[in-house]
């Protein structure tokens, strides 16, 4: 389905812009999988912590 294709393409594009692919994660968790949800979120939080912050200068839309 569309998301499964959009996310890899987005990752490729973000990679070109210096954003490591590990900063974006796609997972499928149902409403009844509370433990799995907690694990996925904690995993991802740790991953981001390890990657550290990146430059936030500039940006903005206009017109």
């Amino acid at each position: 389905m569309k998301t499964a294709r959009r996310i890899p393409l987005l990752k490729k594009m973000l990679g070109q812009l210096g954003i490591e692919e590990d900063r974006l994660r796609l997972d499928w968790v149902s409403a009844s999988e509370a433990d799995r949800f907690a694990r996925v979120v904690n995993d991802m939080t740790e991953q981001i912590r390890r990657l550290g912050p990146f430059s936030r200068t500039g940006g903005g839309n206009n017109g």
Partner: protein
Amino acid sequence: MAKPKVALYWIAGCGGCDVAVLDTNEKILDIANLVDIVFWPIALDYKYHHVEAMPDGSIDLALINGAVRNTEHKKMVELLRAKSKVVVAFGSCAYLGGIPGLGNFVSNADILKRVYLEIPSNANPEGTLPQTHVKVPEGELELPALTDSVLTLAQVIKVEYFLPGCPPAPDAIMKLVELWATGKLPPPGAVVASDKSLCDECDRVKENKKITKVYRSHQIVPDRKKCLLEQGLLCCGPATRGGCGQKCINANMPCRGCFGPPPGVVDQGAKLVSAIASIYQGNTPADIARMLDEIVDPAGTFYRFGLANSLLHKTRVPASQGGSTK
């Protein structure tokens, strides 16, 4: 009654927008009769000190083309802003960053290194780089510095109107001037072009937006009547504002987005990722891998004119590699 005063200025552009004004041909004479052009480096010999001497707000209309790439550009557009009642971001560079905006993919240090030290056609044995201040026997010379990133005009000064196009068509220019001269411009903040997407306005036949392969534009000669996207070319039409007259499409080439995002789209590149990935058929890992292989430069294609205007604005560097987090 004194004629209204008009200024045209260029920053990091190519002169194409100024040539487009000249391409209004005999209509330029009508414009020249209605207004006093008080500053226009491509055509007239006014200097910066002439602009500095003008009273604030004395220029009725300033048409500024080009992106902000160095500190002189920043200074000049701030000066023109103070001296002008209405400022138009003229052309895709001023509106979106344009092609010079691709400089936001790379660092200033890398640009300087490549241009002055590495390029084979340069003879620079001493490895001299441009300096902002240089002492010479007679005195001192100055040059502007590159800004940290390429900026759109509205990211530096307040802008009333945006005229997209690379360059804007002479007809569109005449339309803008006419609206201004007759007091019929829309409320400030408007992009003076169509409110639809190029896709909506394109006259090619659209049957079935589903593709199984993306082609690079040299790999096929597309059918002239059918939608280019449906033939597997990356056409930015779905997320590009219309009003350009589909000139590229008529040349049998896919749109590269020079009119910027259509109303309602915040980030042109993200929207194009969404659109292209949506119409691509296939869900297996092999299909997805093939799609990624076929789309060789997503950022450079989907942000070809609009990188500076995008949400991310430029390539980001992790703090651990020297990127600042301010």
